[in-house]
């Protein structure tokens, strides 16, 4: 991420950004990309408007044109009403929107977003997704890192699953699910400690069975049929749920369930 934004020297391999060489053309590349870092790096003492305006000046945008652009961006980020307030008292979602608006000040053709919605409430996330979706439709390329699989599913055309710095899988969300998971998942809960025993007994009913401490996951293409088969074997789970496979299943399958700190 930092290497693409020409902030860090290239540690290995080759890298071209917008057809240019990051080592040589750093300023030129950065003038055409917008960066939304994980930390907002906003100036809390300054107003919302000043933050946008100054950032535009760093790009050398002419003052008059920049003022118009700032008004557009305030509208885009739904911050027009707060434009002349300081950033300090703004909520996390507002700050995030401001940071994204700021990254757009130079009308970049590539926007890099590092975990854009981490720590936001659902309303704020959906508003952000809406704005990002709009950008995508306008032809802006978005490069996003995220830990939220629903976010990846919503926003991404192409997806790369990284595990410990290596690419574990790549493709569209649909392709990844097709390749690495089944169409549906049956989640079963049994009394007490029986999950391992039940898992062994039901193993042949699904393509793959995963035994977790609190539940049993059966990966299958026909969830309802599999659940019927489970019941006809006399197993009586206290709770059963059939759902579609998600990217989260793919991600956990590829990177494992152990905590990565």
């Amino acid at each position, binding site marked *: 991420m*930092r290497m693409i*934004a020409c*902030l*860090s*020297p290239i540690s290995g391999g080759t890298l071209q950004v917008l057809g240019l060489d990051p080592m040589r053309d*750093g*300023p*030129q590349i*950065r*003038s055409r990309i917008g*960066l939304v*870092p994980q*930390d907002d*790096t*906003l*100036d*809390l*003492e*300054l107003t919302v408007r*000043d933050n946008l*305006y*100054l*950032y535009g*000046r*760093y*790009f*050398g945008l002419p003052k008059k044109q920049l003022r118009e652009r700032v008004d557009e961006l305030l509208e885009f980020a739904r911050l027009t009403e707060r434009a002349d307030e300081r950033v300090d008292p703004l909520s996390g979602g507002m700050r995030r929107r401001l940071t994204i608006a700021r*990254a757009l000040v*130079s009308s970049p053709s590539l926007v890099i977003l590092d975990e854009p919605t981490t720590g936001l409430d659902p309303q704020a996330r959906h508003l952000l997704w809406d704005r990002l979706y709009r950008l995508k439709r306008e032809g802006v390329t978005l490069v996003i890192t995220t830990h939220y699989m629903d976010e990846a599913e919503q926003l991404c055309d192409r997806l790369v699953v990284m595990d410990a710095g290596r690419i574990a899988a790549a493709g569209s969300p649909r392709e990844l699910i097709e390749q690495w998971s089944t169409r549906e998942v049956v989640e079963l809960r049994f009394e007490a400690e029986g999950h391992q025993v039940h898992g062994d007994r039901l193993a042949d009913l699904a393509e793959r069975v995963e035994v977790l401490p609190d539940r049993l996951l059966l990966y299958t293409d026909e969830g309802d049929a599999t659940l019927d088969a489970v019941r006809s074997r006399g197993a009586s789970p206290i709770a059963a749920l059939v759902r579609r496979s998600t990217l989260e299943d793919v991600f956990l399958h590829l990177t494992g369930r152990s905590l990565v700190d």
Partner: protein
Amino acid sequence: MSPALRAYQYNLLAYKRTWRGSLTTTFLYPVLYLAAIGVGLGHLIDHGSNKAVGGVPYLWFLAPGLLAGTAMQIGANESTFPVMAGIKWLKTYFAMLATPLEVTDVLYGHLLWILTRVALASGVFLAVMTAFHTVPSAWAVAAFPAAVLTGAAFSAPVMAFSATRETDQSFVVLYRFGIVPLFLFSGTFFPVTQLPGWLQVIARCTPLYQGVSLCRGLVLGRPGGWDALGHAVYLLVMFAGGVLAARVSYRRRLVQ
């Protein structure tokens, strides 16, 4: 507009929002110092001994010393906490670096701003000195660049130092064992000839001593030829060395 000036513009705009806070240090301190120590204490000194300090009234002796001392303090002050803010607290440096600006633009923009602050404070100080009738010579005009040079000589190395720090703890140490002793013992309040022999040698080697001597000579109309040139070269070299060191430490800190 050059990239460094774009970075400079940030400080200018930020200062427009916060300038009231700096009014006391810039305007009030010179008046208070000159009134309390210069006029109050000076009165006792001038009457207590039959030879005035340095052959002039104490207030005349003190004022240019304070001018240089203030330039040093502003230069050092603005190069500590604001640099830490740029790196850690507000991360304004990183915001700049995500744009076409480069590390040297960020450094030069901020440095230029610090020199602006030193120039503002020095200008005000000289105006206050004039109001106190402590400027007997037209040479005093040249004391303005001399004071700015003194502030510059401190700011660049302190910036280089600040960019290597993880917390602001070190700034307290820098003040306690650097800036404050320099302020007190570099000929600001009394001639260094009052110090014991070996301390005198040390005092004459300190950077603030150069600034104080330079400013005092100019304000009192005794610029002093080669000596003055020596002081100026000392400060210039310190500034240039500081800039080189800051280029290295900024790059190390900001390019990760």
